[in-house]
């Protein structure tokens, strides 16, 4: 009797174990790491669709031409940079393996997801976006496409992190991904590090990630994204990069094989690899909130000015001429405290930007300079203030009149102080913003002058 009971218990146990084995052995979501291809960067370009319904030469009159231009849609080209793991880990330096640690693939299509699907057909490994670091959008694509629509698939994708750095490139985005950096292995990682070390760098907006973009776009707010581009002074006599003009053009046109999918390994093609430090991350692209596309650029000093107004990055430097001798003086910003004060008087909106700036006198070309004297510092403060004011005014003028975008968050402050009033005007705020008077209440202090105070 008792034996029977034990036996039946054993039978049940064995039965359970067998059932368990069935469940345990099959793991649907097994993803072998060596079967994944880690995507480090994406570059989004666009080009004219070559497969339009119209045939060349079939357009006879102007109207048809206009119709054609309207119909002619730009096609998306995405370049994916994936890591070639063996070449990265390498181990022993100076080994025989000269394989490039990354590879780029470009694919075109009408939707991002379609393109992502095409990558699966091309790549021997499944693309994985969990370690995606940068997305570069070419300025052409950023101007043409509604970015909220363009990035929709990426925002939806469960693998993409929200802290991907977003960049807008002057010229082709894919060629930015194709410059093999000298300091890092992977171009995408170099770009990320370049953008991330915002400390003590001027001309870069506060880190703009996919999450930040998603936030701004959901609210319909205008915003700025970091610009990347080729250095202007490239190919000069003293340039260490040493590439000829024709090479530079080749570089920019590297992906001209339009209309078809192609793969190339920058390590073997060689044209761009090893070129090193010819990319700069400076300035910003302005994205208009209502249309979700790019409307213009901000240069280095305008980006600095914008940073000071938003108070997000307290960096930047100001170079100015001393009023009497017109010698060069450089003032480096350490701390900025800004308050945007909105005011409505008799139905008219105005803003006061209350800014207190503290910084260091880092360089002067003035032989008579004596920073140990109070009046010299006072004088320099006045000079610096004049220059800072000029930059701020120029930038605000550009934002208001030329770009008509409120990227500095004036609207937000207005909505905080006058929420009900804001409700009535928020739909055409940027139109109103372009005519709103903005007063600057600026104070510039020199708190430090480094290790040397005077030259004599």
């Amino acid at each position: 009797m008792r034996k029977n009971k034990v036996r039946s218990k054993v039978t049940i146990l064995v039965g359970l174990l067998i059932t368990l084995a069935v469940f345990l052995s099959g793991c649907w979501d097994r993803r072998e790491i060596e079967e994944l291809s880690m995507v480090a960067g994406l570059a989004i370009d666009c080009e004219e669709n070559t497969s339009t319904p119209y045939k060349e030469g079939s357009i006879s009159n102007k109207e048809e031409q206009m119709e054609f231009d309207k119909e002619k849609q730009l096609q998306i080209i995405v370049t994916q940079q994936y890591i070639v793991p063996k070449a990265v880990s390498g181990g022993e330096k100076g080994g025989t393996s000269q394989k490039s640690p990354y590879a780029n693939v470009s694919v075109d299509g009408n939707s991002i997801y379609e393109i992502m699907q095409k990558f699966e057909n091309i790549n021997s490994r499944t693309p994985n976006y969990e370690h995606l670091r940068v997305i570069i959008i070419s300025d052409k694509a950023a101007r043409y496409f509604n970015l909220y629509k363009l990035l929709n698939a990426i925002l939806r994708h469960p693998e993409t992190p929200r802290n991907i750095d977003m960049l807008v490139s002057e010229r082709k985005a894919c060629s930015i991904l194709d410059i093999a950096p000298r300091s890092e292995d992977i171009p995408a990682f170099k770009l990320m590090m370049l953008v991330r070390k915002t400390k003590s760098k001027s001309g870069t907006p506060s880190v703009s990630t996919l999450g930040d973009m998603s936030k701004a776009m959901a609210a319909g707010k205008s915003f700025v994204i970091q610009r990347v581009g080729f250095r202007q002074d490239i190919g000069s006599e003293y340039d260490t990069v040493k590439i000829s003009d024709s090479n530079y053009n080749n570089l920019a046109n590297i992906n001209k094989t339009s209309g078809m999918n192609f793969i190339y390994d920058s390590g073997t093609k060689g044209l761009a690899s090893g070129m090193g430090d010819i990319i700069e991350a400076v300035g910003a692209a302005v994205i208009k909130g209502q249309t979700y596309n790019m409307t213009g650029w901000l240069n280095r000093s305008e980006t600095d000015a914008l940073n000071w107004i938003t108070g997000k990055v307290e960096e930047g430097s100001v170079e100015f001429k001393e009023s009497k001798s017109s010698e060069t003086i450089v003032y480096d910003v350490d701390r900025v405290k800004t308050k945007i004060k909105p005011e409505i008087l008799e139905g008219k909106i105005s803003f006061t930007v209350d800014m207190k700036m503290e910084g260091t006198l880092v360089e002067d070309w003035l032989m008579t300079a004596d920073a140990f004297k109070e009046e010299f510092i006072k004088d320099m403060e006045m000079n610096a203030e004049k220059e800072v004011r000029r930059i701020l005014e120029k930038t605000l003028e550009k934002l208001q009149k030329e770009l008509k975008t409120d990227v500095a968050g004036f609207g937000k402050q207005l909505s905080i102080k006058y929420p009900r009033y804001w409700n009535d005007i928020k739909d055409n705020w940027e139109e109103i913003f372009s005519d709103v008077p903005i007063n600057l209440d600026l104070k510039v202090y020199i708190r430090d002058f480094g290790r040397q105070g005077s030259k004599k």
Partner: protein
Amino acid sequence: MHITDNPKDKISTVQAIVFISSLTVGAAIITLPRSAARSVNTPDVWASILFGGLIAIIPSIILVKLSQRFPGKTCFQFNRIITGKFLGWILSFLMIAYYTLLAGFEGRMMVELVRVYLLPRTPIEVALMAFLWAGTYLTVSGINPIARAFEFYFPIVIFIFFSVLFLGLQRFELDNLRPLFGQGFKPVLRGIMTTFLTYAGFETMMILTAFMKEPWKAVKVVVIGIGISIAFYVSLSVVVVGVLTVEEIKTLAWPTIALVNSIEYPGGFVENFQVFFLIVWIFAIYTTFVSSHYIACLGLGQISNKAFNSFVYALIPIIYIVALAPQNLEEVFQLGDYIGYFGVFMGGIVPVILLFIAIIRREGCAEKQGEK
């Protein structure tokens, strides 16, 4: 008619508090910010959540008072006394249906998130089965092990939950929470109905009071228990809105995961905080699932005068069907809303009527319960 066969089936006051807050903190951690933001539409989401919770305390005190009139009896037993056998049976049946739906919904929510973020290719049926069995394992052993397991999980949940929120603070911008009451209190009031639903689960006190060692402390239990879940939800909403803005929350399917996703730990030795958060969240869902499953079984046991254990396995297929009934995510969220309304009806309206009838018919001992 004794509630249990085992006199050991009594839980301490702390266990009761943990039980109530574990039950109210559930699937909503992930979805509440969105549903609240959609109905409030201003940055004052947190206020709605706070007031919703404070309001939820009122009916929960009423139902505690009701169950204190019937010491040692759960609502499945005392509603028969108050309303007669037939109505009582219907009420009990509704209660059981409510908890079964809740269990199914929690299971489905768990599986949905696991599908999106952890196991995209695993059939949801399989993930659901695994979850149901893991829940059953605890449910079948009765209230005492359940309460002890909750007591064990809860500090872990609190710790990870609040540390994730704390890490989220680095991207926090106070301006996203402003203007404060910019559109007046109307939006806040509009949101309260939605946020109030999240606190559904407090009606469990109608059952739990009977199991308490010190039932006279039941009011304290329910106030602290709901207070803890208010703290959970309010701090969550403050951080989520502060980091992501209301406008964006409205567009996201899983706003809380998006918050966790945007956390960056300086130095970056841990990159994916999602995993930590999902663990916590699965704990939270698990506790809600187990308690609702248990109560549904208990109800079935008590109306049929059998031990609850015999119904534990019988309910599994029903919960499974409920969980798989919604065809898509939207339907899942809708089911959640309906369950919320159902819960408010069972916990907010029914107890008031019952208490009213009980007072008129002088059922139960209204004598001073507190002083013993």
